[in-house]
């Protein structure tokens, strides 16, 4: 339960971080570390290089733009939880963030890190998808914007290239009605199943390899969730129907 050896890099600018990503083989970006460090401790991840972006300047802002709210790569989830701007522009994100693990984890974990990690049971990717938000990725070659529908590719897999890092996530304003509901075995654990509603768009999480959009009239259509010790496939499908019903009543 100790991280394997790696070479540690602590750049101080985005440019420096991107040039490291471009030149190093098998490098991982370390932001809040609340998912990556457990993976290192379990030795499920053994990157040759860790690029710790915590000392990078200019990535710590939450600000309004283009009718939504932008959250930069080093903004902690706790800061988003406490943000007046987020509460005013995108209260759905304020509600969702309180379901992410525990406050002590949120003090360190980042929003952009959760998106880049792309855990299929995690709340924030589904929020981004339900709202049609975007991720801003940077590499030594330049910057590009990736829509949520193109960003999540599979379990822990995104459209990011190996030399790219997320510098910002953009969440459109959440108009009413909006809601997020999930069911988990213990408070703060990953959801067995969850639903995010943003007006007439529904995104489900915990029931497929990525967050998925669903039809409110038949939300379980086409779903093939896996069964495990915590929940059978049938139970997950049942949860989807119940949670969607609840969300549609919001």
């Amino acid at each position, binding site marked *: 339960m100790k991280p394997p050896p790696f070479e540690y890099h602590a750049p101080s600018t985005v440019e420096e971080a991107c040039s490291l990503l471009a030149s190093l083989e098998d490098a991982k970006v370390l932001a809040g570390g609340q998912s990556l460090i457990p993976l290192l*401790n379990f030795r499920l991840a053994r990157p040759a290089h860790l690029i710790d972006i915590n000392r990078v300047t200019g990535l710590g802002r939450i600000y309004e733009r283009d009718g939504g709210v932008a959250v930069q790569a080093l903004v902690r989830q706790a800061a988003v939880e406490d943000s007046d701007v987020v509460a005013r522009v995108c209260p759905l994100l304020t509600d969702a963030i309180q379901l992410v693990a525990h*406050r002590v984890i949120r003090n360190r974990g980042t929003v952009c890190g959760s998106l880049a990690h792309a855990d299929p049971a995690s709340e924030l990717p589904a929020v981004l998808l339900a709202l049609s938000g975007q991720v801003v990725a940077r590499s030594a070659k330049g910057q590009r914007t990736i829509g949520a529908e193109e960003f999540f590719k599979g379990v822990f897999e995104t459209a990011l290239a190996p030399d790219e890092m997320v510098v910002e996530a953009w969440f459109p304003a959440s108009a009413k009605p909006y809601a997020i509901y999930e069911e988990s075995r213990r408070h*703060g654990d990953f959801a067995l199943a969850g639903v995010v509603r943003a007006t007439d768009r529904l995104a489900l999480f915990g029931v497929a390899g990525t967050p998925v959009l669903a039809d409110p009239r038949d939300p379980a259509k086409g779903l093939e969730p896996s069964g495990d010790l915590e929940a059978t496939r049938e139970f997950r499908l049942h949860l989807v129907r119940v949670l969607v019903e609840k969300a549609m009543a919001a």
Partner: protein
Amino acid sequence: MKVNGVERPSPVDPRRLLSDFLRHDLGLTGTHVGCEHGVCGCCTVLLDGAPVRSCLMLAVQAEGHDLTTIEGLARDGSPLHPVQQAFHETHGLQCGFCTPGFVMSVVGLLAQHPNPTPEEIDEGIAGNLCRCTGYASIRRAVSRAAELSK
């Protein structure tokens, strides 16, 4: 980095977890290590005043920051910190393994909510696991700590 107000030398090995650095390199064994993947909460310390899991941070990442561990709450010979006093008074600990983590989380909780509601107390201690004392007396400890902190 400063630990409990004392400037400490930098960790040598980048893969050293902050929890191990505190315990093995600095001898501050009050920070306990349970699960080493962020679930149990035993290793919680304050980083610039906010509670964090020390098993989910590399020690090198604490460079330039202020850390407080359970040893830093009340110095030898001085009265207990209000949160420690409250745990003592309400039987908020039994075997004591989880206690340092609970105490540090509650210090953070009371900084955020000086007068926590029962829901805020439950939310605030939800990230810490206790297997023997029972959460009822830990909840009472949090309420008592809020009174003592006034």
